[in-house]
């Protein structure tokens, strides 16, 4: 359990940031998720995939936290600004950074569901686990991912 917390907390935290939760709330949410996990296991409930469970609960809690943030803006990490910040880099790096900016924009342009499927896939979740997190079918996950990949692929061709 402690090991799972150490191994997973940063991943879940990062996922919550991509969901628009502000950093302090995201960190609190991660801790809350693991307390819920402990409590659930102590009650003797069987959990098939602990990682899948953690992301599902984090996603649901994250959405609630984000909804409560309605007075403030959703968290925006300003990645593009960081990526385009002037730096002394060789031309190759510059090209890589430009490509990354284009890729980031393409990710931002994906539909919310496509983006969720993509981020959860990047965290190593299987399609049925992603499906259970988002409350959709595994075949829908396959379809969202296919469309997302189709759009991201265009960045390579540009």
């Amino acid at each position, binding site marked *: *359990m*402690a090991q799972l917390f150490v191994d997973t907390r940063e991943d879940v935290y*990062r996922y919550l940031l991509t969901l628009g939760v502000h*950093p*302090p709330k995201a960190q609190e949410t991660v801790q809350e998720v693991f307390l819920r996990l402990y*409590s659930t*296991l102590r009650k003797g409930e069987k959990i098939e995939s602990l990682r899948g469970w953690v992301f599902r609960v984090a996603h649901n809690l994250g959405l609630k936290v984000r909804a409560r943030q309605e007075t403030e803006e959703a968290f925006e990490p300003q990645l593009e600004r960081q990526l385009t910040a002037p730096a002394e880099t060789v031309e190759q790096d510059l090209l890589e950074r430009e490509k*990354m900016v284009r890729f980031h924009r393409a990710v931002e342009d994906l539909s919310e569901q496509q983006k969720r499927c993509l981020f959860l896939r990047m965290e190593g979740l299987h399609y049925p686990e992603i499906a259970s997190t988002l409350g959709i079918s595994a075949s829908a996950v396959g379809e969202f*991912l296919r469309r997302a990949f189709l759009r991201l*692929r265009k960045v390579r061709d540009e």
Partner: protein
Amino acid sequence: MSSFEMRHPEEDALLRCLDGELSGRKARQVERHLGTCGQCRTELEELKGTIADCANYQAMLAANLPEPPQPWRDLYRDFSRIDESLANDSLLVRVTRSLVHSGAPRWAVAGVSALLVVMGVYYQLRQTPSVQAATLLKRAVAVAEAKPPAVRRHIRVRTGTQQFTRAVGPQVAMMPAAQTAALILLFQAAHYDWNDPLSARAFQTWRDAQPEKTDTVTKVSIPQLPAETCTRIRTEAVEGDLAAASITFTADLAPVEERLEFRDQEWVELTEIADPSTGSSGGSVAQSVEEPVRAAEPPSRSAALSPGPSASISDELQVLSALNLIGADLGDPVEEKLSNGKVVVTMYEGVPPDHQKAIQELATHMPNVEVRMEAQVAAPAPAAAASAPATNSGPAPIQSSVEKKLGSHAEFERFSGMVLDLDEQSMQRVYALRRLAQKFPPDSEAQLSSKDLDLLRELSRKHTAVLAEKVGAMEHILVPMLTSLGGTAANARPAVQHASWQPAAEDIYGASNRVHLLVTQMLGATVGDSAGANLPSNLQAALKDLQANLDDCRRLVK
């Protein structure tokens, strides 16, 4: 080429295939299609490129997103709060419910509830065993890490069959003694640190990895330290190879004793000793070592490997047993043979990295074993060769009939996926069993010691038991379908009773191959002469033959 191979796979199938989300059968269909379709291969390469972009993007996110604003909280305290509240809740709920059900007056229910709340507050001042255990271990780890690392410690290791002293510590090289090889495998399988087993850290790491466990913490007095009160933590785990472990600490939180009880009845006791030459801790441990508390069970993994000057079939058996333990004897491209006085294990491309590591480890601890890596894949398994490449373009009539019975193409896919997966799992066992039968024919078997013979029988039993389960499941699915298609088992051969298990294993091999060929023909993975009207009866008879051969073999390896 079959119709499945000619069609392009569904739009999301390539990504699913790369993500490992396709069933075994579907993945094989896609792979076969890729072998013949350049367009889909290009598509696949593009997808791989986009997946690599995603990985870079994820790395960029990790580097650029803000760090957590606070240090991470120590959740143990919160866990103890949860433990206490659960314990109180359940007691309160239980007692209140029983009072209400017994028809006690309302004032009595309220009074008892109030009393329980008071008791709960008192209870919160104490700790539950799991919290006590976690806290104690945490403190013991901190104590151990605050001390300067000992250059060398000595531990007495005792199992049901052997006893020896072992040096541990940062400057001690791994001891490649033959007697420890089997123990190392045992510890590895249980995910218990072999390098420093008698330590709070090793115990804590194992305990933390257990999703379901029960702890007890007791005060004990141990013979080697009669004047001191020690604390013992015992943790019983629901899953994993290690069923229970207990560790005993002195008042200064130094670990002095440990007992590990494995799920297969093996046990290992570790005792800290000060002077290995006398085997005593302050001169008292050697005397205090008792005879094993249980009768020494024959270990399922041979605990004593005694390699002679050159490798024998006994060594070969140990290697096969170790491969089985690792899980590398079921379809991994690994070969082993006796050559120039060594057991040479050859790994071809495609052995999973964790298996590779475990096999390399094996060679470190078994002096007569040499591990080689070869780039080329070994010759394909005969079952694959037996499957003739399909050449027709439409589904065979038998497939249409099956699909019609099942009601839809999707149902057919599900049905065939299940059957082909079971068939593949069965064939893996059949090959592993046949390999044993060929390596140890009756005359070689006669040269084995009784312990080795037990090991060989155990391996054979394991393979036949799983095979029986898979064949049973396959029959359960197939026979109703075959019967509905007009099949009978009338052509099954009369059962043959062998005198030894090896020829029975060979018969299993023959019968399984017939089943495999007919199943793949029926489901369109291959075409063949018998894909016609006789297939339902032929397959039903082949399944019955296989079952009879299997019964015969299981009788002989009992």
